[in-house]
């Protein structure tokens, strides 16, 4: 720590006493290598023990510490105070209901995540004795990028369509759905198609593209969503030409 300090404005919301969220300012000692998360931890440890926020790994892997930093969705652990000279404003992740302070309610996303069958459903079951389901590196390349998602929900906070209509399946869930659809070992593409083609599926996206801009893991959810617009259209029209089944 140095003698330097900076002010961190933090959104507070205490459901038992506040009608709506408000901003509280803290003066925090600051050094060049401090992350926003460390700033918040300093506040909680030394200035106000009631401040609530989520965090776990401190290394952009767990996806817990998503929050708005000066209005932009960021992982607090991967964002440095030095990039906000003098003052920074920390708010709860946009587009999610606030439970308390910086903690948001994730139920909606968890439901969506469950709905997309987020695991490999083998095309055909084979007995254990026949060994593993194998895959070449080239086949893995098709989905590797989308499997980088850490469910941090920055993309949802960046998506105005999700903010305006919570029924939208949203960038993160669609990126993960795409990850399993693109997996050569998976055979559940058709059952997931129903979600993509629904009113609340891919066509709720108007290609704002900010989701991919803020993604801390370069997953490019906008790419997954837009590729599936084509996939849905193909699925719809090709059923006249060939029987259903086989999405790839």
């Amino acid at each position, binding site marked *: 720590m140095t003698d330097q300090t900076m002010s961190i404005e933090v959104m507070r919301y205490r459901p038992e006493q506040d009608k709506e969220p408000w901003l509280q300012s803290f003066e925090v000692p600051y050094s060049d290598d401090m992350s926003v998360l460390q700033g918040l931890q300093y506040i909680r440890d030394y200035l106000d023990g009631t401040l609530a926020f989520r965090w776990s790994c401190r290394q952009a892997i767990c996806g817990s510490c998503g929050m708005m930093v000066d209005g932009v969705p960021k992982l607090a652990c991967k964002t440095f105070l030095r990039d906000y000279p003098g003052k920074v404003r920390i708010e709860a992740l946009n587009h999610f209901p606030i439970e308390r302070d910086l903690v948001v309610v994730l139920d909606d996303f968890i439901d969506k995540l469950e709905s997309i069958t987020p695991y490999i459903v083998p095309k055909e079951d084979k007995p254990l004795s026949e060994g593993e389901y194998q895959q070449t590196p080239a086949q893995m390349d098709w989905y590797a990028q989308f499997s980088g998602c850490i469910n941090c929900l920055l993309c949802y906070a960046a998506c105005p369509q999700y903010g305006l209509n919570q029924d939208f399946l949203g960038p993160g869930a669609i990126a993960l759905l795409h990850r399993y659809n693109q997996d050569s070992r998976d055979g559940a593409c058709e059952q997931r198609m129903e979600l993509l083609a629904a009113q609340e599926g891919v066509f709720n996206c108007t290609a704002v593209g900010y989701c991919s801009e803020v993604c801390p893991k370069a997953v490019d959810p*906008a*790419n997954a969503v837009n590729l599936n617009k084509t996939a849905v259209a193909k699925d719809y029209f090709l059923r006249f030409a060939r029987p259903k089944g086989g999405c790839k």
Partner: protein
Amino acid sequence: MNKRKPYVRPMPGWWRKNPYFIEYMIHEGTALFVAAYAFVLLFGLWRLSQGEAAWNGFIAALQSPLSMLLHLILLLMIGYHSYTWFKIMPRTLPPLIIGGKRVSAAAITAGGFIATLLASLALLGIAWGISQ
């Protein structure tokens, strides 16, 4: 008693709060100019169907200073719309692999611009050829 009282934030003026969204609204807004130009062309087609005099009247109207100004504005707006369209193109395409390597987003965008330039030049050439 359940003390939970999750707070849902309203979103008035959401697009004015982030430069990214302002740009998004502008590029979506320029689509209206694309539609406007389509109407100009449709109007021309309709005048053509009414005979030579009507068509000549349409051509004359196109040459008025007001029409020139309108077309200049349309050109700028449609140009900007195309630019944003190619900028987002890499996000809409499946991975493009040439010679075992994935083509970069910048190369896809540049490819779009070059294709537009060539198509525009070809069109200009054809129009010039017809007018000779």
